[in-house]
């Protein structure tokens, strides 16, 4: 699309210049937010050093420049968090630093970028390009920037994406004093790789996607270093029990499908993966339905039901092996963009339950407040989630956008 924004806002005259001599106009944009966060943990932690109160602050800035009528652009998005108690959560990352060139139906990108694949709401199984920034959020939606060379083309018969991924990002884990955290700490100094190239292994991914009327379909293949580590028990230099991440070489084929039929959405995504000489399948799918303008109000009420499956059963790498998700989303469609999401995940094998409530709204023009509460109930000692059982929390974030 043509980036007419900044030039056009200055008025028709400037806009006209942008149109007639496109290569002359370079537009700059500078946006971002500062977001203090407060967390309360009602239960005492299992591990010494875990506190009941935590505060931290995150900052993210995006600087963009567009030229060539918007067909070329550079985006730079650094992110940083400063955390009171968890040294691992105090971290910085370059979410994006890319140059992009668009010509006709082709798009080329070089640098650090983020890419999302998938359709479901809770488990994001086929989304594999970026590593999860786990200290940011348990939902797996916060990602670390991934270095890449990417080519994308839109043709009549669909969209093709190709990625070369020359550098690997390790998942972030909370430290001993962080919450929620594993009771046995992850020792990142002993991280192991399936390939001798370690982080320098050149990974490859490709995806085909297309829309067939009400159906949106994506098929993808990935070969390289798996983003989900296997966590192996071991000892650190002091002889303490630790978990050592192993990043294996994997081959993965995946599919994601969504059918949009009036107010019903039907979703499925899953992959077949070969890892450490083993083959397995994970899949998730479900429905989403929205009741519009309930009780003659402007409010919409959405229901989400999904099922998550792993044919290996529960492992410490993936607790969601036979789990059901039920969610309710209420959006009053007001000026403040209020939204409330209530979700529960139930492990059908163990009856362990995770409940979450997320509420958010805007205050004024520039403040956005989100409140999140998570409760873990009935988690057995044998459950991979047991470490979190004492880490129920309430979290408040107040973002100031600029």
């Amino acid at each position: 699309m043509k980036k007419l924004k900044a030039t056009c806002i200055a008025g028709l005259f400037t806009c006209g210049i942008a149109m007639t001599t496109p290569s002359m106009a370079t537009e700059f944009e500078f946006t971002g937010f500062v977001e203090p966060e407060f967390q309360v943990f009602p239960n005492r932690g299992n591990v010494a050093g875990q506190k009941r109160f935590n505060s931290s602050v995150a900052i993210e800035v995006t600087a963009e420049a567009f030229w060539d009528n918007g067909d070329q652009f550079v985006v730079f998005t650094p992110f940083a968090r400063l955390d009171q108690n968890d040294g691992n959560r105090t971290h910085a990352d370059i979410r994006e630093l890319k140059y992009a060139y668009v010509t006709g139906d082709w798009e080329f990108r070089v640098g650090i970028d983020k890419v999302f694949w998938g359709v479901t709401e809770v488990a994001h199984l086929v989304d594999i390009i970026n590593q999860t920034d786990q200290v940011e959020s348990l939902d797996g939606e916060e990602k670390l920037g991934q270095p890449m060379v990417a080519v994308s083309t839109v043709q009549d018969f669909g969209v093709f994406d190709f990625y070369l991924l020359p550098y690997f990002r390790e998942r972030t884990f909370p430290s001993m004093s962080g919450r929620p955290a594993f009771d046995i700490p992850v020792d990142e100094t002993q991280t192991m790789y399936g390939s001798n190239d370690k982080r320098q292994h050149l990974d490859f991914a490709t995806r085909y996607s297309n829309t067939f009327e009400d159906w949106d379909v994506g098929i993808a293949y990935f070969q390289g270093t798996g983003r989900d580590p296997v966590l192996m028990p071991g000892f650190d230099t002091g002889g303490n029990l630790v978990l050592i991440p192993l990043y294996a070489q994997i081959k993965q084929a995946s599919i994601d499908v969504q059918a949009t039929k009036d107010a019903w959405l039907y979703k499925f995504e899953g992959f077949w993966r070969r890892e450490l000489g083993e083959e397995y399948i994970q899949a998730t799918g479900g429905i989403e339905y929205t009741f519009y303008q309930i009780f003659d109000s402007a409010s919409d009420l959405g229901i989400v039901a999904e099922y998550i499956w792993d044919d290996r059963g529960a492992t410490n790498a993936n607790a969601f092996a036979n789990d059901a998700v039920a969610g309710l989303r209420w959006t009053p469609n007001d000026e403040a963009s209020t939204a409330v999401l209530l979700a529960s995940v139930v492990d059908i094998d163990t009856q362990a339950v995770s409940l979450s409530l997320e509420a958010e709204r805007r205050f004024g023009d520039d403040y956005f407040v989100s409140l999140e509460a998570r409760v873990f109930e009935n988690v057995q000692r044998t459950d991979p989630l047991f470490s979190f059982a004492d880490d129920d929390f309430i979290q408040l974030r107040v973002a100031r956008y600029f």
Partner: protein
Amino acid sequence: MTRFSIPDANPIVRLTVNLREENQPMRMNALNLHNMALAWIIAAMLVIVPVGISTAIAEELAGLDTLPGADDPAARGLAIAQETERRDVGFNNTSANMQMILTNAYGETSERELRNLVLEITEDNEGDWSLIVFDKPRDVDGTALLSYAHILDPDDQWMYLPAVKRVKRISSVNKSGPFMGSEFAFEDFSSQEVGKYSYNWLRDEACGDRMCHVTERTPLYEHSGYTRQIAWTDTTDYQPRTIEYYDRKDQLLKTLTMTDYRLYEDKHWRAHDLFMENHQTGKNTRLVWSDFVFQAGLTESDFTTNALKRAR
């Protein structure tokens, strides 16, 4: 078929202030003389002939296309809508900026800024393609909405969420909820194709300085939020000037007043000020268009899910 922007809705006239700006100076004098002569003739007619006949004659004198007569109000209403559409054929593609000022019942205001790109689709039975990019409030900066409009089926819509870089196909069945918390529904300013309504001409009457055709139109889309709309379309340029929206209980819900019409490429009228008043809640939204660019060089490749991710 028609443009995506709000101006298409078929409303009417409350063209009080801005008429002078809307016509080129050269035409003004001629038009005024014409109007004066017309007024005298109409006045004379009113004395001696029934009103129906006088309006029909007034129309002919104004040199407009011949519409079906008042004895066939459905055909006449349809013809008025077709004329509105015909006059905007060939805009090809446009880009424009949109500012919305939301005012609640307590008089508190908040603002939104968006950009709108439209690609004209000339195939029969298909609506235009559009891409809306949100700039403000800042927390939704970069969020973008891609729509392929259909006449009687739900549109195809994809939403891009920049924080997670995710493109989501969304249900578009309901188009009558508040758009961005405003008094506009997506239905109110999405592509206004002739085939979306059935029509019934009611009367012709003065609207501000102009004459208007008053047409009742009934949405054919089964999930429309309205039982009917009453649109005032001026008899000179065939542009909507005012629209009244009746809710599912057939109560008057909202009134849209469209002013500050400007002419582009000697053919395409665009209202730049759209004021939507909700009579049931006391809230209102003013939508101001600016920086219209016609022939903005947009092609189908600017309306793909890939383009949606690049939208700024």
